[in-house]
């Protein structure tokens, strides 16, 4: 009797969870199938599959403005993201190593400062930063993204990697030091290989966040030639005549693709990344 009740309860849980999951994912699935629909169908009817599929929405949408195709927008996005991600990981790991493995004066204060910048809203920095980049001649380039990455301006990742370092026994460092490694060799040869999962998580999150970042792109990039994909999408939304909404949806799907692929191929790093930085916080 009690066994039956437990089984029933488990089934109820599954039903609720699946229902909720369906509601949550349906919009995304609908978006994918609607990118093959005609306009009338997008705005009428609730069926998921297109009745008269339009196959060329992706090809037509990809042409972008005519002069500039989504190939350029994609290329721009990667030109912006790849160095940003790479430098974020390298600089954050170096700084995390400094905080996690060395004693120095004012370390506690500096650490607190670093953590408190987690709470510093971007909105209060954006105007002076914009003016600064304007003075440096960095506007309409990707440097406003890349240089702060080089300077470890992402405390979230530093903290995440520090947490990981703290989990690694100091015996490793000491053994390597006795073997004649200097501090940098200890870092590069011993610790980096051990903390690959944390670095990987940091890279993935930075990739996704930079990919989705609309506000900063909107402010710093102003020529269509240099638009990353988020700005191109928004432009298509403004420029679209009433007839090709399916192309807008098609390009939206295209823009979500890299994140989705990354998520499914590196799922465990997502979970590990979030939890390592958050749980002890």
């Amino acid at each position: 009797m009690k066994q039956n009740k437990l089984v029933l309860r488990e089934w109820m849980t599954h039903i609720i969870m699946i229902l909720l999951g369906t509601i949550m994912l349906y919009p995304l699935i609908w978006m994918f199938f609607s990118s093959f629909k005609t306009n009338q169908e997008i705005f009428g009817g609730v069926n998921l599959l297109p009745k008269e599929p339009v196959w060329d929405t992706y090809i037509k949408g990809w042409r972008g403005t005519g002069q500039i195709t989504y190939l350029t927008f994609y290329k721009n996005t990667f030109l912006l993201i790849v160095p940003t991600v790479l430098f974020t990981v390298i600089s954050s790991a170096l700084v995390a190593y400094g905080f996690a493995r060395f004693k120095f004066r004012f370390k506690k204060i500096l650490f607190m400062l670093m953590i408190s910048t987690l709470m510093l809203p971007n909105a209060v920095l954006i105007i002076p930063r914009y003016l600064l980049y304007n003075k440096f001649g960095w506007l309409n380039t990707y440097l406003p993204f890349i240089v702060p990455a080089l300077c470890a301006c992402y405390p979230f990742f530093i903290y995440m990697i520090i947490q990981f370092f703290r989990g690694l026994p100091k015996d490793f460092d000491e053994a390597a030091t006795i073997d004649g490694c200097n501090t940098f060799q200890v870092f590069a040869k011993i610790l980096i290989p051990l903390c690959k999962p944390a670095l990987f998580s940091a890279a993935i999150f930075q990739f996704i966040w930079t990919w989705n970042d609309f506000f900063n792109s909107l402010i710093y990039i102003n020529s269509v030639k240099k638009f990353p994909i988020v700005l191109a999408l928004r432009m298509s939304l403004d420029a679209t005549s009433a007839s090709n909404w399916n192309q807008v949806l098609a390009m939206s799907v295209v823009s979500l693709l890299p994140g989705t692929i990354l998520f499914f191929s590196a799922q465990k790093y997502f979970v590990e990344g979030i939890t390592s930085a958050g749980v002890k916080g």
Partner: protein
Amino acid sequence: MKIKKGKKSRRENVGYLYILPWIFGFLVFQLYPLVSSLYYSFTDFSITNIPVFIGLKNYIDMFTKDPLFYKSLMNTLKYVLMSVPLKIITALLVAVILNQKIKGINFYRTIYYIPSIFGGSVAIAILWRFLFMDSGLVNRCLAIFKIPGVQWLSNPKVALFTLSLLSVWQFGSSMVLFLAALKQVPEDLYEAARIDGGSWIRIFFSITIPMITPVLFFNILMQLVNAFQDFTGAFVITNGGPLNSTYLFALKLYDEAFSYYKMGYASALSWVLFIMIIAFTAVFFKFSDTLTYYEDGGDY
């Protein structure tokens, strides 16, 4: 002894060497902007002229001459108070359900996390527009059940709520954090409570919640800071409308700074936002001091 001391201080300097990139970044990209935006907030400064000190005029103007400031402030407060609690409660509830030892937790966790990977992306904002426009998918689905449609985006009383839904939909990362915290609550605590005959509601409030308060607060705080600055949804989906009902503070800030180039006034706005976030945080920490249970006393 002397040698040892020398060695030690060299090791100290090495520590500084490693955190040097951050020190530089902090000074140039965080501290300098913070201080100068405070200074700009007391100046009349468009991008073409040099800043002219005008004291508190920007702040006074904003409270006396700028109805849109009030509007955006109230909108943002409403938005924060709607989206953050809803999101946190959803994330916590789902996490608690998933924490039962049932099959397929990883599968569900994956499914619920998917919306979160798209964050504030423009594509999702576009999708939201298609879903919630008057003839959008949501209203068409409601029509099947003979429920009259709602003007999700064109009714000024509803539009802000529709934008909050977008934020709630992305409860995934909070949920993952809750789930990890829940897993660390020792099983024997629950067992002891069950033996004492505690109902599950009682157990939830007197064991689960106190044991995960650090994560709960971390989540709420992070969501607060983000919600105060949300921009993409309001900008792309409704562009502040209808009747400025979704004109969030971040939009106001963007308009003043980058449409009208009133950098001084916009800096003052950004400081009001900052002070608001600090105030919320301070109230929060006051709470958390009395409620939080730290098992390890908290290193650092």
